[in-house]
């Protein structure tokens, strides 16, 4: 075997640091052996996916409870969205049963010393690695954002492997941790007009549909806000499995420029839009905040809803992280949103909450949300700008 371990790592494997750590290091070393890693490396930040009880089920919860007996996080670790707002779940129509089980999941993580913030945008609420830092993140949109926009280094971890990194403080050195695997493979020249956040989601789908996991080198994007890049990352990861891209003048990683370049035009964006647009969709659910809305997004939406009323028969979820919601409460945004009859939902999102059967049609600004609404919840969908989504809610 080519995998060399330090004395401390060998002790973990022998069980000297407890059962959970032993199981965790078995996961890390096995993945290292499968992918031909030479050694394990320390990580400084972990993001765990597989938090919604809706996805985990009783077995997942049982595994977490077993790990929580003696497992403790060694590095800063945050959580992906849960299946509900951990405080206000009742008014969002979540059942008592589900809430109880979801609470047990979060309690197990908390016992392990994980920061139970439940958001897909950990980098907005204090889990922010810097350029070149080795981390172990799950959640495909956050993986793509940290690798590409921040320039930190992570593979696409799953729930159990991310937890394993948290309990050991290690990951195996392979894949995106190595410079040689971070070079661009295919170029895309963007000739399409990019105005709103949803355009960036559509661009992510247009490129994602074509790349088949290759690393794109993107030119022709003059500027992009953090919120737009968040949406782009979520979309290109959902539709293309892309964990890393380069965007000229915008992202910080160094790379050689690929010889082959394809162009992406307005027609490509229109095609992506029409694919995410069910004509017959009867919209009864509007959700914005996939990935979780930033405080800037929330402020803007609060302004749009101020003094207005969501029309009868429509449900509106603005999804965000709990710390962002706390700021929104302090700033009065929460009151404006809730008085209008919309919900500012923290900790959860429309992709992982148990929503199947509750709605017929979803309108959202997120291409990623469209994918899960269609595939998991069997909703019809329409992708629109945030302004159009709010207009629909009020009409």
């Amino acid at each position, binding site marked *: 075997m080519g995998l060399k371990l330090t004395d401390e790592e060998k002790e973990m494997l022998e069980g000297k640091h407890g059962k959970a750590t032993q*199981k965790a290091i*078995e*996961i890390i070393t*096995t*993945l290292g052996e*499968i992918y031909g890693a030479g050694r394990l490396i320390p990580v400084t930040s972990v993001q765990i*996916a*597989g938090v919604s009880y809706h*996805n*985990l*089920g*009783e*077995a*997942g919860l*049982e*595994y977490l409870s077993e790990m929580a007996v003696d497992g403790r996080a060694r590095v800063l670790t945050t959580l992906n969205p849960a299946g509900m707002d951990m405080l206000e779940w009742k008014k969002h129509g979540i059942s008592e049963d589900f809430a109880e089980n979801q609470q047990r999941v979060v309690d197990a993580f908390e016992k392990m010393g994980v920061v139970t913030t439940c958001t897909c945008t950990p980098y907005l609420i204090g889990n922010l690695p810097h350029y070149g830092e080795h981390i172990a993140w*799950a959640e495909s949109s956050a993986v793509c954002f940290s690798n590409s926009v921040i320039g930190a280094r992570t593979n696409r*971890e*799953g*729930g*159990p*492997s991310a937890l394993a990194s948290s309990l050991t403080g290690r990951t195996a050195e392979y894949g995106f941790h190595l410079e040689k695997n971070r070079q661009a493979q295919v170029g895309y020249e963007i000739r399409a007009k990019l105005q709103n956040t949803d355009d960036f989601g559509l661009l992510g789908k247009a490129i994602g549909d074509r790349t088949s996991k290759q690393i794109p080198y993107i030119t022709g994007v003059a500027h992009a806000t953090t919120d737009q890049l968040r949406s782009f990352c979520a979309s290109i990861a959902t539709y293309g499995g892309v964990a890393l891209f380069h965007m000229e003048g915008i992202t910080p990683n160094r790379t050689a420029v690929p010889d082959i370049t394809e162009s992406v035009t307005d027609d490509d964006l229109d095609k992506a839009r029409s694919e995410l647009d069910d004509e017959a969709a009867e919209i009864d659910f509007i959700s914005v905040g996939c990935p979780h809305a930033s405080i800037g997004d929330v402020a803007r939406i609060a302004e749009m809803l101020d003094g207005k009323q969501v029309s009868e028969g429509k449900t509106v979820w603005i999804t965000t992280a709990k710390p962002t919601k706390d700021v929104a409460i302090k700033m009065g945004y929460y009151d404006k949103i809730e008085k209008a009859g919309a919900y500012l939902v923290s900790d959860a999102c429309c992709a992982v909450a148990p929503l199947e059967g509750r709605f017929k049609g979803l309108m959202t600004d997120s291409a990623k949300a469209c994918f899960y609404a269609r595939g998991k919840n069997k909703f019809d969908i329409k992708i629109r700008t945030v302004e159009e989504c709010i207009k629909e809610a009020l009409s």
Partner: protein
Amino acid sequence: MTDFQGRKIYKGKAEGVALVTAVDISFYGGVDPETGEVVEKDHPLEGKSVAGKVLVMPSGKGSTVGSYVLYALKKADKAPLAIINRETDPVIAVGSIISEIPTVDNIEIEKIKSGQRVEVDADLGIVSIHE
């Protein structure tokens, strides 16, 4: 008896009847976590159960939540006895470790037929077929 030398993914020994497919399996959404029945539409094993079998497939696919489905099967006593792959993917590898299912890869799986008795010594990475 024919022996194949592969690579250990997760330790252990098992012997049982092979259930073979040429199509990757997604445990999340593709296998019922309570019964072990393959429920993925149009999968060649649709309707068959992986419970108590030596499961042979090229690799795993799909969501990483699949690792927890293997764990659920183990807890329900419906897990495969062992898993043999051409190339194990991380979802299966992690699932095998947390559920303690002997697993071997780098095996020419097309030489194994459903119904054959197969012995797996994952510690040594050896798969033996009883003709």
